[in-house]
């Protein structure tokens, strides 16, 4: 069974105002087949955690490690991490003009698997996944994320999750900006991927809303770059009622 371990992770980011410490010692262990929700207020470092796992060059790890089945993820380039089985569903997927969804998906699948997918089953798989996510078939011929609505971009992320079949997926605020119908469709996609491949999921969210559709095994509350509290699904219920206020230090008057 695969395991993703995050140990004492400290991460800085360079800003115009100088170096800022964002993550201040994060410990997290995710086993294959588990869903971990990471919740927290804005600015607590949730997205930094997501991007650091994926290897975005903006973030500098100053201490700690990330291990995938004992392998040092921090030594890997961004593409090597993906090929090792990590996936990041982005909060703000970028547009890639002139590159169609079809071309992009096939290129990514080929890179991840090391060989080109069989034409017949691949086309069928893509069509099936798109239909499951209620994506119109003309999406395939559109350029990646170009002119997509917010909800379409998120569905496109989950489409990739379903087709690329990673061992671990980080979902960075996949729920933000979705109406309830889109939220259901996207959640169904995540649950389907879970059933099909039994991957491990790190679900990063500001709101408890998505947890009605994707049921976490563990909930971690992120505050000021650290995990302030963790527990089972009941912790999410409590956050729904009380919000994050009790974790925040009172502002000096």
């Amino acid at each position, binding site marked *: 069974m695969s395991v993703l371990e995050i140990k004492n992770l400290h991460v800085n980011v360079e800003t115009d105002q100088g170096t800022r410490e964002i993550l201040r010692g994060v410990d997290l262990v995710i086993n294959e087949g588990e869903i971990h929700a990471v919740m927290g207020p804005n600015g607590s470092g949730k997205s930094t955690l997501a991007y650091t796992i994926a290897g975005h060059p903006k973030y500098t790890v100053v201490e700690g490690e990330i291990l995938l089945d004992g392998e040092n993820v921090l030594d890997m380039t*961004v*593409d090597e991490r993906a090929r090792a089985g990590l996936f990041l569903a982005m909060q703000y997927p970028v547009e*890639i003009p*002139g*590159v169609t969804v079809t071309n*992009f998906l096939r290129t*990514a699948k080929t*890179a991840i698997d090391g060989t080109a997918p069989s034409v017949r089953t691949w086309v069928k798989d893509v069509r099936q996944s798109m239909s499951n996510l209620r994506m119109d078939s003309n999406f395939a011929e559109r350029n990646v994320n170009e002119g997509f609505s917010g909800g379409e971009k998120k569905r496109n992320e989950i489409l990739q999750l379903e087709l*690329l079949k990673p061992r671990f997926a980080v979902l960075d605020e996949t729920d933000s900006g979705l109406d309830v119908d889109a939220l259901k469709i996207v959640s169904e996609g995540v649950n389907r991927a879970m059933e099909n491949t039994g991957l491990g999921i790190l679900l990063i969210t500001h709101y408890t809303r998505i947890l009605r559709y994707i049921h976490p095994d563990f909930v971690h509350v992120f505050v000021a770059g650290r995990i302030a509290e963790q527990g089972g699904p009941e912790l999410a219920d409590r956050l729904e009622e009380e919000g994050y206020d009790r974790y925040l230090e009172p502002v000096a008057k």
Partner: protein
Amino acid sequence: MTSTAMPTAEQHGFRPHSDGPFVPVQTRSERFRSVNVDDFEPVNGREHEWKYSPVAVFADLTSGELDGSRIEIESADVAGVDISWIGRDDARIGRAGIPEERAAANAWSSFGEALLVTVSGEDEKTAVVSRHGLGRAPRAAHTVIEAAPNSRGLVVLRGTGDARLSENVEIVVGEGASLTVVSLQEWNDDAVHLASHFARLGRDSFLKHIVVSLGGKVVRVNPSTHLAEQGSDVEALGLYFADAGQHLEQQVFVHHDAPHTRSRVTYKGALQGEGARTVWIGDVLIGNSAVGTDSYEQNRNLVLTDGTRADSVPNLEIETGDIEGAGHASATGRFDDEQLFYLMARGIPEGEARRLVVRGFLTEIIQKIGSPELEERLNAALEAELQGS
């Protein structure tokens, strides 16, 4: 920088542009023209039409003697396309436009016979005129491409191998005709090619004009289109990829000179390597008779490495208030690292991800050519450029 705005005083030439203090107050259509090289002063490189160009590299083409004998061409027989040579005094020469600078005038003064390509018939057809290996001595050429009224066709002028060539290409589009002209520069690394294209569009005709410059040390293709009659429509497209030490330039001019004319100018370029240099100047003049004009021009450059320079200068002059629309945009940007991150986060290795983004950026132009065969060949040529990166 991207701008889509109504013209300002600067764009009319009332005040100097930021790119230099000596912009003469002059409407684009009032530039001096002549077919005689001696009517132009020797080129010193400070003239507005030469100031971006490495004039010392091709002094032989602006002031030397040019070999005006027939250029060797290859072309297959295509029904509805006639290719022949005509004498320099033929009445079909000089109908689309005449030179505005010395290299073009030198070519006009020097050519012996002109290549005449006539397109007739309403069926779609494609003719490729290949010029391969024109040698290293300075030469002149003249070509007239004529589309008969209501005809349709695509003509490719392709250059490969060695060249030191100055040429004029006239494009005469008859009433109701729909013509595509592709000028494809795939010359050797040390080739120099200076070209002026003059197009004249008849009533309700359509010209798609495409400049693709990939190979050559200095390639300068300047297309000007005269929307001379009501309802004429030009789509001017360009694609260029400058490697280290290459200078690729295009000065595009569209003259709206009749009611209800339309123009779309879209040029896209990529630059990589030390000394890769591109120039795009886009002049649009909407004359006082051109009511109902609909015009938009844009240039986009993708900078892939340090040590490159892209100049992009859109100019818009409007002499009538009664138009549908006129806009321009210019943007030169570095490679977007977020796009790279996105693709790599899906397992795609960096080199392949870069090629995917650049190909995507330029492919918009290729997709508009409308000839699957040519698109395929251009994609292959582009792939070769990208593999060199």
